[in-house]
């Protein structure tokens, strides 16, 4: 049952300022959250912000403590440390568990879109890439990040230190922002140039083991992009907007009624551009599973890949 034949419309950026603002609501929301997290860290470290007498958010994205009571920790970092066969204090494990639980519910890679400071860098690189119509220098399969993830854990055991934490550009960046310490700018520049001129969506899409880790966690995400197959005209605008190469498949989405892949960062870029608003963020439970189609969907050809313009 192919999509009903309806005139195919494309997304037009509204003229009015309010309209444009509305169109970019998710992008702005994400930037706001990213900024808020960093400002909270910075304010606690430099201006002594307190809540109920306790430091508001002491630490950084690797590990922190909220209001002097709630421990938070980057589960991937904790995992690596465990691989170094070093016994960790309870607080770090508890913090990792808390963060893991939160993202398990929200969606693993929500971290990538909504919290990770590198996201702004890679988005900027993507914007530059589009402007300059840069072609890929080489292509590597997106699955490499899972290899890097495995490698990080292996190396943690071998080298005896949290392998990725010691070279992670993300860690360098947020440490630089919060404490002004380290190669933050160089890592930022490195990823930006790599994404802009070497490989489209290079770092987040192909190499970052942290993203891979969150993708694995993200499989059970409770917040998903719901897909209303009926209203979709297959115009392909969403595919162009989506940063992740292999997340949006109309058939699978139609079948599951939502974007099921763990690699979806819930960045809602597709939702914003869908002319038919057939995509929206929703709780997994609230998404009705569409009736299973009577026959295998007619092979109407592979959905147009995110065409490289």
């Amino acid at each position, binding site marked *: 049952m192919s999509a009903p034949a309806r005139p195919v419309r494309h997304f037009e950026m509204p003229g009015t300022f309010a309209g444009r603002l509305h169109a970019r609501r998710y992008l702005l929301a994400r930037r706001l959250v990213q900024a808020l997290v960093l400002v909270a860290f910075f304010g606690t470290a430099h201006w002594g912000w307190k809540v109920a007498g306790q*430091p508001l958010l002491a630490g*950084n994205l690797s590990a922190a*403590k909220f209001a002097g009571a709630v421990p938070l920790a980057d589960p991937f970092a904790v995992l690596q*440390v465990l691989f170094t066969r070093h016994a960790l*204090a309870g607080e770090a494990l508890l913090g990792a568990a808390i963060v893991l639980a939160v993202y398990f519910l929200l969606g693993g890679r929500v971290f990538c879109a909504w919290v990770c400071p590198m996201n702004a860098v890679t988005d900027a690189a993507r914007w530059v890439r589009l402007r300059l119509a840069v072609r890929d220098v080489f292509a590597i399969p997106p699955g490499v990040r899972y290899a890097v993830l495995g490698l990080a854990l292996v190396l943690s055991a071998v080298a005896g230190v949290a392998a990725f934490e010691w*070279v992670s550009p993300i860690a360098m960046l947020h440490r630089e922002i919060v404490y002004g310490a380290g190669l933050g700018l160089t890592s930022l520049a490195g990823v930006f140039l790599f994404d802009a001129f070497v490989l489209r969506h290079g770092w987040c899409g192909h190499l970052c083991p942290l993203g891979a880790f969150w993708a694995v966690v993200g499989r059970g995400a409770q917040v998903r992009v719901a897909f209303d197959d009926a209203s979709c005209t297959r115009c392909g605008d969403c595919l162009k907007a989506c940063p992740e190469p292999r997340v949006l498949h109309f058939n699978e989405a139609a079948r599951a009624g939502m974007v099921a892949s763990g690699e979806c960062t819930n960045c809602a870029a597709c939702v914003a551009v869908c002319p038919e608003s057939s995509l929206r963020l929703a709780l997994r439970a609230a998404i009705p599973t569409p009736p299973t189609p009577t026959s295998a969907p007619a092979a109407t050809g592979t959905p147009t890949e995110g065409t490289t313009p």
Partner: protein
Amino acid sequence: MGQGGERRKFLAHAVQGVAAAACGGVAWNALLVQQVHAVPFALRPPGALAERDFAAACVKCGACVVACPYGTLRLAPAATGIPLGTPHFVAREEPCRLCPDIPCAKACPTGALDREMKDINASRMGLAVIDAENCLSWNGLRCEVCYRVCPLSGKAITIDPHPRKLSKHAVFVPVVHSEACTGCGLCERACPTAVASVRIVQPSLVQGHVGEHFRMSWKPEAAPVEASPEPPPSAPKPAPAPPGKPGNAPGLDYFNSGSPP
């Protein structure tokens, strides 16, 4: 191509992937090991684990930096040779003030800093070492600033007066005692010479070790060896010479070899 070709292509891809991962891994590992071992001595916060364990446990979250009331701690910037982003302090600029409640260790989530440490004076961040050639007191001037600013003065640093020999003055010589020195760096910061004549260094770099087999009896801590009441367990008798090979007692070979000079 058929099935074999497909599989062969797949195998080639797999091998290619593994090779790429391996060489990436090797490079990455070299970088890590180099970073970890290259560290010259870094002054860690009080209660820090041994350097290797510390490097493993620390996730560089900066909680200790925020918790330090004196702004002593900072995350290591690039190109200082100290592993990037790990908390440390520079004694000459801002030493550790040995807070009795040890806020930094309490703030550490991963246990890289020992949260259970009760007595700040038990921390061994480093060891003060005095350069006798440039120390004003060693040269006879009446300085002794390090002795006075030391929070464990009289225990970590004591003053031993010596006759000066060159004139009828005494020289008031500061001496560091490693069993008490916490390595807080207050002396290094206060030392009035242009370049500090007392430095906090890695103990293992400078400390010798008198062998276990000898005790300095005039020193108080030499364990007083009274005659233990019951005789020490008799040493195991030397194994009797293996029977059946007469004449192979120790020393025989030497005695019977060659003609006497």
